């Protein structure tokens, strides 16, 4: 199987990140690395640079990683990590998208073997997808 774009879900809640990752991974037919980075280092509500860093490493299959934050302030943690100038998976994009819908759309698009920019677009198009 060819490598697919990896996905990192950054949430303030470990349970929310894990549950969304499970759902997205299954929708991606088991072909996509969807890694949860939820909660603080001591298991509380919040985000953790170390968890995001570790998740990026786990999600990296060599063809790019999409990072999806749950709420605006999770973006700050992701940006703080990117600003450290450490070696990180490349290419890497941060998606501005609804969390559950974006994760599912991204996983399905990655499972189809599409590139990082297509996966990013699929996640961000979730803003326009009505469910009713």
């Amino acid at each position, binding site marked *: 199987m060819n490598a697919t774009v990896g996905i990192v879900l950054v949430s303030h809640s470990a349970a929310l990140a894990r549950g969304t990752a499970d759902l997205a991974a299954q929708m991606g*037919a088991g072909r996509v690395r969807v890694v949860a980075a939820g909660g603080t280092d001591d298991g509380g509500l919040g985000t953790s640079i170390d968890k995001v860093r570790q998740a990026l490493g786990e999600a990296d299959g060599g063809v790019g990683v999409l990072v999806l934050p749950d709420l605006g302030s999770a973006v700050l943690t992701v940006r703080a990590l990117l600003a450290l100038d450490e070696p990180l998976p490349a290419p890497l994009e941060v998606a501005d998208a609804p969390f559950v819908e974006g994760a599912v*759309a991204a996983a*399905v698009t990655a499972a189809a073997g599409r590139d990082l920019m297509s996966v990013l677009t699929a996640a961000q198009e979730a803003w326009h997808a009505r469910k009713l």
Partner: protein
Amino acid sequence: MQESCEAVVMLTGDLHARPAASLAIAAAGFEASIAFLVGDRRADAKSVLSVMAIGATSGQQVRILAEGPDAPQAVEALRDLLAQATQVGA
């Protein structure tokens, strides 16, 4: 060469999340643009969120419309998948 092609499938079960994902993954593998039409609703077959939102249920007819160089292959593949994916227990 642009070709257009279509087929109709009668659903034997509701179109839930996992089959919708399988359809979108398969559709993304074709160059043709592909739509599912149910009543007056239309979904982009390559968008899983769009396919789920169409809310297709057992007994409804789904029209598959494809346009593009591989339209016939796309319609054939999605017709089969749609028939399988909505079987009870899928």
